[in-house]
């Protein structure tokens, strides 16, 4: 075991030192069982309901950044050097925080069990600076999309959010007022320490050393999937290596026409950076889990997990992305499409980590067409039934080239090779997309599961290709083709 060191973080404004916590302790269990802070609730212990939402504040470039997370699948070791804020901390003495007062004024609670989670998501929303009037509704939906309420039907909560945003535009709260002190306290925490068994390397070299020292220890980043090993599959872990503090993994850059996305970047970070580049990328990433999940889940986690229904692989495969795999002193770059071998199996060797994903800027620009479609039972916070990403590169010589990548259609995220070769000139009037889409029956034999039948998956996959062709052919001003284009009645 590495030398025993102390976990230090701020619980609200109080510096907490915990020398002795198990590395697989969740933040939720820590709060409820170790601190007797029972305001934070367990609804599902799988990151799907938001009842356990807490806010983590971190110092970024001299100011505090507030992020909501699901405490049920977050590990207490990741709190090191940060501020943990729970529903018990918002009121200033007897005076409710404006977030709480709005929820009371607009009758936003009924049974009250989901309410602490909503309050904390709203608190995170209240820290959004300069919210434009026209983006309000989508921002509210985005911040609250991961909080389930079974009682209210949400209308009063939306009203409370609107009222709260009116107030936060002009008022500071106690967290704003003591931001400087909070930052000083956070900076006083020695970043190299953390609790026993929960290892936080700060560089790739340290990471590889620890990996060699503890070959059985899982390497985790956001824990949004790993957390379920603990809470659902009831595994226990004596040693866990977290990549959260490895700065080299946490950057996104564009250099010489190549986007380089560090594996430790969160989906939220990706959304902020790549969202503005393409409408479909923005929509897809906005529908990736919930805000709480996007604040923790990482690019490397989504790829390394190798789920056939992960949201990133189809997008990245259609962008011809490459994955960078690093080991101590060595590095190899693979086309992402070749990274996945079989159900939950990848090319990643035991001594390697995923360090980054690369794709060419040109792929999103130029005269190509790029679309991503995610189909799920519920629009928000749901896993893909089928996810399809299409890239069409027109060509003067042979018509063009289609890249079609699917999730939910096979044991791995996969390209549709037969369809790709059948689609040589999708813009030509002679090309019948319905007919061509039959090729997908050769490419895939999907399974039926809780989300949908195999037949539905095949049918939808075909229809999504048809939609892609229709959209490529349609002009800007043509009829809306997607639900998201339709305004209310």
């Amino acid at each position, binding site marked *: 075991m590495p030398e025993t060191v102390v976990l230090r973080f701020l619980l609200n404004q109080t510096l907490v030192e915990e020398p002795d916590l198990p590395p697989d302790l969740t933040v939720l*269990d820590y709060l409820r069982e170790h601190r007797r802070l029972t305001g934070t609730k367990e609804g599902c212990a799988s990151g799907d*309901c938001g009842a356990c939402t807490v806010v983590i504040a971190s110092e970024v470039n001299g100011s505090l950044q507030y992020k909501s997370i699901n405490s049920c699948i977050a590990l207490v070791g990741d709190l090191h050097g940060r501020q943990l804020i729970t529903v018990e901390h918002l009121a200033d003495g007897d005076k409710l925080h404006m977030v709480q007062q709005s929820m009371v004024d607009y*009758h936003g*609670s009924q049974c009250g069990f989901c309410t602490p989670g909503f309050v904390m998501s709203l608190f995170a929303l209240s820290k959004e600076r300069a919210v434009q009037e026209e983006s309000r509704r989508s921002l509210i939906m985005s911040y609250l999309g991961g909080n*389930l309420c079974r009682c209210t039907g949400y209308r009063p909560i939306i009203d409370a959010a609107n009222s709260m945003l009116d107030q936060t535009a002009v008022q500071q709260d106690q967290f704003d007022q003591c931001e400087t002190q909070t930052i000083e306290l956070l900076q006083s925490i020695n970043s190299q320490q953390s609790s026993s068994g929960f290892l936080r390397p700060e560089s790739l070299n340290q990471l590889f050393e620890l990996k060699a020292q503890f070959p059985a220890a899982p390497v985790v980043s956001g824990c949004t999937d790993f957390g379920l090993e603990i809470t659902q599959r009831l595994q226990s872990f004596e040693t866990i290596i977290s990549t959260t503090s490895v700065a080299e993994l946490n950057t996104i850059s564009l250099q010489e026409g190549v986007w380089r996305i560090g594996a430790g970047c969160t989906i939220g970070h990706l959304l902020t950076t790549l969202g503005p580049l393409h409408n479909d990328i923005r929509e897809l990433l906005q529908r990736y889990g919930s805000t709480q999940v996007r604040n923790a889940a990482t690019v490397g986690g989504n790829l390394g997990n190798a789920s056939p229904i992960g949201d990133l692989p189809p997008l990245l495969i259609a962008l011809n992305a490459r994955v960078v795999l690093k080991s101590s002193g060595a590095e190899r770059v693979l086309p992402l499409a070749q990274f996945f071998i079989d159900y939950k199996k990848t090319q990643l060797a035991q001594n390697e980590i995923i360090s980054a994903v690369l794709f060419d800027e040109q792929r999103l620009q130029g005269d190509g067409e790029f679309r991503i479609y995610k189909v799920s039972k519920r629009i928000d916070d749901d896993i893909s039934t089928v996810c399809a990403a299409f890239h069409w590169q027109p060509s003067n010589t042979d018509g063009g080239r289609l890249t079609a990548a699917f999730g939910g259609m096979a044991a791995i995220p996969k390209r549709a090779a037969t369809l790709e070769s059948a689609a040589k000139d999708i813009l030509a009037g002679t090309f019948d997309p319905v007919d061509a889409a039959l090729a997908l029956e050769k490419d895939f034999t999907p399974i039926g599961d*809780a989300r949908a039948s195999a037949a539905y998956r095949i049918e939808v996959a075909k229809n999504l290709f048809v939609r892609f062709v229709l959209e490529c052919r349609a002009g800007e001003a043509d009829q809306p083709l997607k639900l998201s284009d339709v305004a209310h*009645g």
Partner: protein
Amino acid sequence: MADVGHESAVKHVTGAAIYVDDITPAVEQCYVAIGGSSIAFGEITHIDLKEVRASDGVVDVIVAADVPGHKDIGPVFSGDPLLAESWVEFVGQPVFAVLARTHQQARRAAKKAVIAYREQPPVLTLADAKAGDLTVRPPHTMQRGEVEEVMSGAAHQISSTVVVGGQEHFYLEGQVARAVADEDGGVLVNTSNQNPTEAQKLVAEVLGLPMHAVVVETRRMGGGFGGKETQANACCCLAAIFAVRNRCAVVCRLSRVDDMTMTGKRHPFEHHYRVGFSNDGAIEALDFELNGLCGMSPDLSDAIVDRAMFHCDNAYFLPHVKIVGNRYKTHTVSHTAFRGFGGPQGMLAIETVIDEIAFALGIDPLDVRKRNLYGPRTGVVTPYYQEVVNDTVPRIIESLESTSDYRSRRKSVAAFNRSHSTLKKGIALTPVKFGISFTATHLNQGAALIHLYTDGSLHLNHGGTEMGQGLFIKVAQIVSAELGISVDDIKVSATRTDKVPNTSPTAASSGTDINGMAAKIAAQSLKERLITHLCEAYSCVESAITFDASGVHIDGEADLSWQELATTAWLARVSLSATGYYRTPDIYYDRDKARGHPFLYYANGAAVSEVVIDTLTGEYKLLRVDILHDVGNSVNPQVDIGQIEGGFIQGVGWLTTEELKWDSNGKLLTDSPATYKIPAIGDAPAVFNVSLLDDSSNAQNTVMRSKAVGEPPLMLALSTWSAIRQAVAACVENGRFPALNAPATPEEILRCIRLVSS
């Protein structure tokens, strides 16, 4: 009344509200996990719990033989063993329970059991249950008129089938109970439970104790929706048994997956119907066969299928009608109460029939609805011979049709559909008429207890439980209105079986009607005593006395604060504690004859939904909803609107994204929120107009002339389901009837699009 919020609102938003799992642990406190069957149907041949007992932190393990008293916890009929003895009848059925130092240790230990079975093929479908004539209870029939004769003479006849899925309650707080033994071998149980009295009775029975030895307390639930009417009792019983055996505090809390696997859901149904109707869409004869899939035991299924039968007329007069309700047994968890209690499933049947008539005749379904409403033109007698009186449905529809701009929007929808091929819109208006009263007549009773203390503060207790629906604040408002005392001076305390005994479950939308009225009667009784005392003390007449929030005022004589009033009354030896008891009048039902007057009154409402569907994927979006609902003279409009909006969205979930799927071995596939999708915030319509019917006072003498509101609004969501059907119908001209089933998942919508095109 003024804008009064939920009594616990501030505690909710600060995290200060205490739910069962939040109670400060005792020094000696242990946790339960339940070991369930891995097969759907079979005989247990061997149970090996050695590894369980040896697991870290394990304190105690019990099997059926360790249950000291009754081993069955069926609420009405037996059939629900607390722990399986020899046969198991669903995947997840509790077989043993383990007690450990921590929740996690208990769960880990429970996984280590080795149980061998002699497996039998499970019955999982209606077809198989029918073929084997496997039922949990006998069928029941309601009949009026000459169905066959009129049917054969009708201008049009249609027969068809519609399949209706069940629904997981998904209360955010899972099942939980905490038990502490007392010095006499009795037990105090804190539970998240809609029916503390039932829990008390069952805990006493499994322990072999008299009911007086068991106290059950429910302060609040993190959602109930019917899912804690009978399903909360297993946790109470297991916690109590362990607490008595081990002399420690015991918490039995189900993990979400265990909760979804081990507890019952809304009943799935399959309805067969034959309808005969005229050229103008008037229903002449209707033959319904309602087949409830009840799961492995009777539980409450008899009453639930009855309520489906009571509501398959919805708001429409059925001149000649036969309704058969079947209760089929399947090897799944036993299905149970869920908001509406079978009513929604029954109502869905008739709304399908109406849509199909309108489709066959090529007319607006709203016109068919209006043509068949109860009224002087059609008739007022239900299939169970109760007369529909004071019906507000026609007024509601007339008003909503206008305020929602239904007719012109229907034209706009048609225009949209003509100019769009990938997306199609639909709009529909559906009414609700929901019978208020337990159909088990004896349950229609409530009781309350109030104490006025000498400082002028008032303690209020009653038999109803608070599950978020705002019952506690409503009852406090009723007492406040009766006595004049401020709501702020009233404390509503946790429901407890040793304060108000022998209570009915908080169910059937009855909470305010029966407990509110009982509390009002208690307040009246106390007030009368205070008036008598004041008349003597001040030698005044009753008319000289007025009560308000500040206290009591005796004309020209004195003004006393509530503290002064209470203190002087106490000094004069006036009892300041009062009970109130209420039973609903004028209801009766002769089930043998299927005739009677089971409902005191009907709650009414109507909704208009507009949807758009994507014909390539079957995905849909709810664009706009307009609701007009009749709550009578509302005790608390904000709370009532909350019930309407929340009930509506819960109904939308049932009819759209919430899909229960079992595999061919009877294992529930949708056993977590990762696969079972209740509505999220983005599913709420961007335009959501909800109004209460103006100038409506319950013609029946209910408390403050209000109407019950808990369940009825859920069925307003049938408008969304019907609107989806209209959108599917618009996909082709002269296509077939969109025989949409529920839930209308994207897959079901796409299937239906293919169907109409074929």
